């Protein structure tokens, strides 16, 4: 069965996407192999985030958001799995994933408008991380929806710089405990 793609509301319109969490060896050229595979096979990357994942720096985790229209997800997973440096691939869907993105932006705000920026930040639990003469830099880590909302409201200011990291994601943990034989069960 083909997993259902997730509909992602974004500044580029609605995009069906899949989120893949890929554990790779942290070696020279691995990111290039992954990116090269996507371009070679005609798969579109919507966003990509990568960093070492353990203290020994032996492995990295790549979170890739794939445009669902560009290829069947089984093909993307199958081809990725053939890369020798790829250890495992988790296909995460919306209901079972914790996903976050980070936005950092510099907006023009003279003294009269600084309070508006601060208010907007407090509504979104964003932070003001830097203040210059007539400019402020703000930061928000949140779900893609929340980051999209914050970004669109920020546009009422003059935004001079804006960066988004792309998604990082991990599967949600199980809440139900493993079935443990109980005394009452055996009693009945």
């Amino acid at each position, binding site marked *: 069965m083909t997993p259902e793609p997730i509909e992602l509301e974004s500044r580029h319109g609605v995009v069906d996407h899949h989120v893949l969490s890929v554990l790779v060896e942290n070696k020279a050229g691995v990111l290039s192999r992954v990116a090269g595979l996507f371009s070679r096979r005609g798969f579109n990357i919507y966003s990509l985030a990568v960093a070492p994942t353990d203290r020994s720096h032996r492995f990295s985790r790549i979170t890739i958001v794939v445009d669902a229209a560009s290829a069947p997800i089984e093909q993307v997973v*199958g081809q990725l799995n053939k890369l020798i440096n790829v250890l495992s691939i988790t296909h995460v869907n919306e209901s079972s994933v914790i996903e976050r993105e980070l936005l950092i932006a510099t907006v023009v705000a003279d003294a009269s408008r600084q309070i508006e920026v601060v208010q907007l930040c407090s509504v979104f639990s964003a932070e003001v991380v830097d203040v210059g003469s007539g400019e402020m830099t703000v930061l928000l880590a949140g779900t893609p929806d929340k980051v999209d909302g914050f970004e669109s409201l920020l546009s009422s200011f003059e935004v001079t710089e804006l960066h988004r990291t792309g998604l990082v994601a991990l599967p949600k943990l199980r809440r139900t405990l493993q079935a443990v034989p109980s005394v009452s069960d055996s009693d009945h």
Partner: protein
Amino acid sequence: MELTGAEALVKSLEMVGTEVVFGLPGGAILPVYDPIIDSSIRHVLVRHEQGAGHMAEGYALATGRPGVSIVTSGPGATNIVTPLANAYMDSTPLVVITGQVATASIGTDAFQECDITGVTAGITKHNWLVTDPADLPRIVAAAFRVATTGRPGPVLIDVPKDVAQSTMQWYWPERVEDLDLPGYHPEVDIDSAAIARAAELLAQARQPVLYVGGGVLKAHASAALRALAEKTGAPVVTTLMARGAFPDSHPQHLGMPGMHGMYTAVTAIQRSDLLVSLGARFDDRVTGKLDGFAPGAKVIHVDIDPAEMGKIRSPDVSIVGDCRDAIEALIEAVDAQPGPDLADWWGQLRSWQERFPLTYDAPDDDGPLRPQMVVEALRDHSPADTIVASGVGQHQMWASQYWRFEEPGTWINSGGAGTMGFAVPAAIGAKVGRPDRTVWAIDGDGCFQMTAQELVTASVEQIPVKIAILNNSYLGMVRQWQEMFYDERFSEVFLSKDLPNYVLWAEAMGCVGIRVDAMSDVVPAIEKANSINDRPVVIDFRTDASEKVFPMVASGTTNDEIVVHPSQGDARR
């Protein structure tokens, strides 16, 4: 024991059982060539690195063992890119070792520097840039494991000059866990539930076809395939990559499917109700226009590469695993099922075979040779276990159509990549691997001119291959397309009527050269060639340029629109 990186590399090649390498030295690989003098490994000195790669491929295809090439950095490395791409498309196990500039110079545009791991990332199964001589034994062992297990393929090891020159403490990684391949797990167990479903489908099928691809050869599954075919009674087709996997003489064999396949093989697939794909990948040359391919067929897809499942055609049953394991499991599973009655199906198949056999026009007495007839003469006057190599084009299709392949490893060709110039070096590699066998290259004149220089290698190294050039003075397959689809507007396909002089060229390279214009000279020339075993032989067969390959499924059409030889009328219904 302290060894230089170069010594460790050569010793590692010995440890994995390498008996021959095909190569050409140069600046960055110089340190590696010194210990080769003292090694038990035979080195075949080629004239161009492309030749080294294709020889290694020919060796691998003829022996089932990985082919090994050693070349230098920069242009030496880029010259072997085509063989790597070719081996990648055809899943041929190949280990290529390239020299690289010293680590301190990497990234500085040094003399003969090229980022060959970057260049070949997309056409190798994996590649390694060695940065520490202590890694060499491990990487060589890992490279051979990756090249030869799972879906086989080419790998590349890039060795900077200083890594080859500096020293390390010798060791040999005995265990798979020592190879540092945490993401590589090629061994898979066959899903028995999938086998059971497949056996059910086989029991229900009234018009099944076993669609056999190169994976059957890679898995050494020919005997198992034959047992499955005979147990089920199903017809068998063998793709261009699978010729030899099932005997052409077997009554259940319908021949090759595809763009220039047998009418009955192509049409059987089209009308089948169950297609059992064994190590095949639904290549566009087999499927024709995809949305009209085998429209009524359920599909059982057996392949060791999970990414092949549903890549082109969505299967009803996926069986991931080694073809031989899967076929053996299928044989056991079909035992439990009543066999289907295939009498009507065979009646239909036999009537197609009778109506649309392979055919060509009888030759004119004094006209140019019919290329098909030359292939038949070669087949009939050479030993039955002859190994045939070919290039790419019309001659390749005629060779595949008219030769009779009876056993694995007798057909050496460039399938997926379609690499012109493959035949001469691949034949040389095959002969090195199987010196006991007669090796014929059936080549075109266009192909021959691309890599003929390797016949110097063959002469000097005493590798007595035989080359039959089907010389029609044209790039024949392109000419055929221009005739059929471009209104006979022939654009840049005529090579030359008289140049080169192939006999003189062959003799200049230390070969025996023979030119054949008349039908009466064909068999004597072949017999003479087969009697010469101390040097290569080149026969220049002057063939009819107007001959076209039939049947043909034109590009962009479905297999239902197959065009047969004009003498057989219109097969389309």
